[in-house]
């Protein structure tokens, strides 16, 4: 079972879009995929139209009040462990109750889980406790990055955190940095992408996620982009990313 955590403390970089559509593209190749929404804003949950009222979510799984299987929502091609805003309170509670062990909360909660080829975790836009749980759970990070100057500052912070976590004894690899919202018409996008590859070399995915209206429209229809517009640019880019991830092993 391959675990991947999608992380960037900056909002609007394409984390949720990447988690959903990479999951869908991997599923299209016949893999069993679980998507874990670790964001109290529940963007992933909502973008796939998962209804959580009355049923357990990732919050209850983290506290041990529900088994993971009880909280899973099976969609035609994906399984979702959903989130709700309650998760923000749960985060505080876990910090209070397990002050020295909280980074292991998700790892412990999902220990022994079987039946999936890929588990993709979508983190909140922060480097707080929930993100740390997500990072420690998988030990493998996919960092979506807007091809803009400010995004580079954020990337340095994430890399600093990765170093700190590694030094604390948790295995941690950077699966890759994914240039997102790439606008071929701007020289800034081209420069950032070019220099990213020159500087960070094999740590940058070959795939670039181009700006595409279908990526923005799909969540409004509660769909991933491969279901919404199978022949579109967004679907094409995420299929290419899935192939890269599969080649990575």
């Amino acid at each position, binding site marked *: 079972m391959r675990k991947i955590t999608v992380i960037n403390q900056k909002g609007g970089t394409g984390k949720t879009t990447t988690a959903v559509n990479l999951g869908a593209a991997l599923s299209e190749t016949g893999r069993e995929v679980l998507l874990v929404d670790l964001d109290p804003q529940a963007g992933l949950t909502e973008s796939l139209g998962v209804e959580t009222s009355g049923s357990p979510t990732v919050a209850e799984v983290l506290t041990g009040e529900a088994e993971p299987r009880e909280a899973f929502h099976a969609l035609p091609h994906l399984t979702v462990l959903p989130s709700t805003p309650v998760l923000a309170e749960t985060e505080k509670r876990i910090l209070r109750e397990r002050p020295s062990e909280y980074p292991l909360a998700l790892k412990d909660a999902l220990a022994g889980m079987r039946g999936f080829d890929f588990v993709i975790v979508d983190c909140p836009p922060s480097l707080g406790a929930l993100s740390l749980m997500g990072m420690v759970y998988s030990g493998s990070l996919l960092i979506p990055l807007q091809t803009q100057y400010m995004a580079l500052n954020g990337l340095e912070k994430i*890399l600093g955190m990765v170093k700190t976590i590694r030094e604390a004894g948790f295995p941690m690899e950077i699966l890759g940095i994914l240039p997102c919202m790439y606008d071929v018409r701007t020289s800034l996008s081209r420069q950032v992408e070019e220099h990213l590859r020159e*500087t960070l070399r094999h740590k940058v995915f070959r795939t670039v996620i181009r700006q595409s209206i279908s990526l923005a429209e799909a969540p409004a229809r509660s769909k991933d982009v491969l279901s919404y517009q199978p022949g579109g640019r967004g679907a094409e880019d995420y299929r290419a990313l899935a192939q890269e991830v599969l080649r990575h092993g």
Partner: protein
Amino acid sequence: MGKKTLIPEEKWEGLRHAMEEAAGTRKTSKTPGLPAPAEGEAARPERGKKDKKKDKKGKKKKKGKKGKGKKKKKGKG
């Protein structure tokens, strides 16, 4: 020329450095997996070994001469 005008070169150098440290490919003074105190502890024994050898050689000469000399001076004065 236009290539590097939008984002300064230092920014890329900082990122390269940060990535090497994050990936563990850059040799830093810290031992991976251990907290900061290990850095000081790791450095001390090396310094200590060298100093001790020097001290042992130096102590025989220095202690004998200086020790006796100082006491005599103090005692007489």
